[in-house]
């Protein structure tokens, strides 16, 4: 779905409140900032990641993002252990998440530690699209991407 220029792919899962997308692959989940989140944040200036192997509780910080005007956390949508970060990707191109938030611009890969009890808030498909429409309207966001 594209709504106010914000792309919300329906094959992904979302933690809408935290503006995080999730792609499950076996027991690993890849996480990134949604188009809405990267737009609100603005052009990345720097990013720092928690260490691989670190266990992070739901809502706590997996990485800290600095844009030209703001610093803030990239939060865990569920409790998890960090198995990989995209540190190398962002070292080569700090704007990865501003250009391709759902592919090259992923932030971390994690192994959920209590997913059964912490997945109720995750949405996907048409439900995600509908809820994001509401959120985009509420936030009055028009999404923008960086290009090369």
């Amino acid at each position: 779905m594209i709504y106010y220029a914000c792309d919300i792919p329906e094959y992904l899962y979302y933690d809408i409140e935290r503006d995080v997308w999730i792609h499950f692959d076996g027991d690993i989940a890849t996480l990134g900032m949604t188009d809405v989140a990267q737009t609100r944040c603005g052009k990345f200036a720097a990013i720092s990641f928690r260490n691989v192997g670190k266990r992070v509780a739901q809502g706590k910080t997996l990485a800290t993002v600095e844009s030209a005007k703001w610093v803030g956390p990239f939060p865990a949508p569920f409790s998890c252990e960090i198995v990989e970060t995209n540190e190398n990707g962002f070292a080569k191109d700090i704007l990865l998440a501003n250009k391709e938030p759902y592919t090259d611009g992923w932030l971390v890969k994690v192994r959920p530690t209590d997913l059964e009890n912490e997945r109720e808030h995750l949405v996907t498909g048409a439900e995600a699209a509908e809820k994001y429409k509401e959120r985009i309207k509420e936030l009055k966001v028009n999404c923008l991407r960086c290009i090369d």
Partner: protein
Amino acid sequence: MSKKIRLLYMEGVSPLRSQTVYHAVGYAMKADTPNTIIMVSPNGPYVSIGYHQDIQKEVDLEYCAQHNLPVYRREVGGGAVFLDNGQLFTQWIFHKEDLPATLEERFKLYIDPLVATYQELGINANLRPINDVHVNGKKIGGTGAAQMGIAEILVGSLMYTFDKKTMSQVLKVPSEKMRDKIFESLEAYMTTMTEQLGSTPDRAMVKDLYMKKVSEALGMDVYEGEWTAEEEAMAQEIDARFTSDEWLYQKGQLHQQGVKIHQDVHIVEAAFKAQGGLIRIIARLREGRIDDITFSGDFTLLPVFALGALEQSLRGVAATPETLKSKIEEAYYRLAIQSPGVTPADFTTAIMNAVTPPQPV
């Protein structure tokens, strides 16, 4: 939503506390914590660096040690800055639902009372979007934003005075010429209440005026409140972190192009090895144009007066390769410049290396 805003007025706290108080209120914030504004100034000078800066690359630590200037890393972004009692920091710690969703609107809401305060004092201040406050093209304080715990933070200051000389001394820069250029540019493009008014306004009066302007802008009452035991405990925890070497010396990877003076003005520096020698440039860019430029190096350029004339001819020129090259070629022709092994294209490359540094392969 709480309709009242708690004000914590903390003039004359330690330099460390002038930074950790807003982090503490942010991280201690709970659903029932009132939106809070802290007005705080330090009782001594210090240097504050941005969240992702590398202290060893950005700060002249030797100078700071010699002058007993502590350095603290904040959890707000941006660059290194020298701070002292001449600024009254205005720190907002708000629930996110009580602020606009977009950063542009959020900064506007935050900056409006600062601008209104300055204007009532007779200073022609205005918002320079997205987050600067300007007076006739000069900056009178910057602002920043961050999220800490559930709190959204906005920080900035009311600028009574600003020590531009020391600001230019605390930065680690590649050359003293660059430092001189930074100082010159701060003089040209930054201002303070004292400069604008000819004297420093009464601080208690400014505080009351700002509180009134905040209340008007937000449509809420502002009351002087208490710092809680929980916030003090959190501040002590953050004090310890901020003074640890682990926190201070963590490797940052924020890469900034040159030194930002304000939203429209940057100082950049670069070198290029041409066949006929090394060309070094220090340039001040203003809104994408060369505002000022200095060439140096070990190349030969004749006639002797031509280097200054070449620098002069580039003022106001758009910093794009085509425009620069054409302007430099024109100066070469007009001044009959001879520069063995150095061409107009080499000067253009040197400038563009500063404007858009070559990317690592």
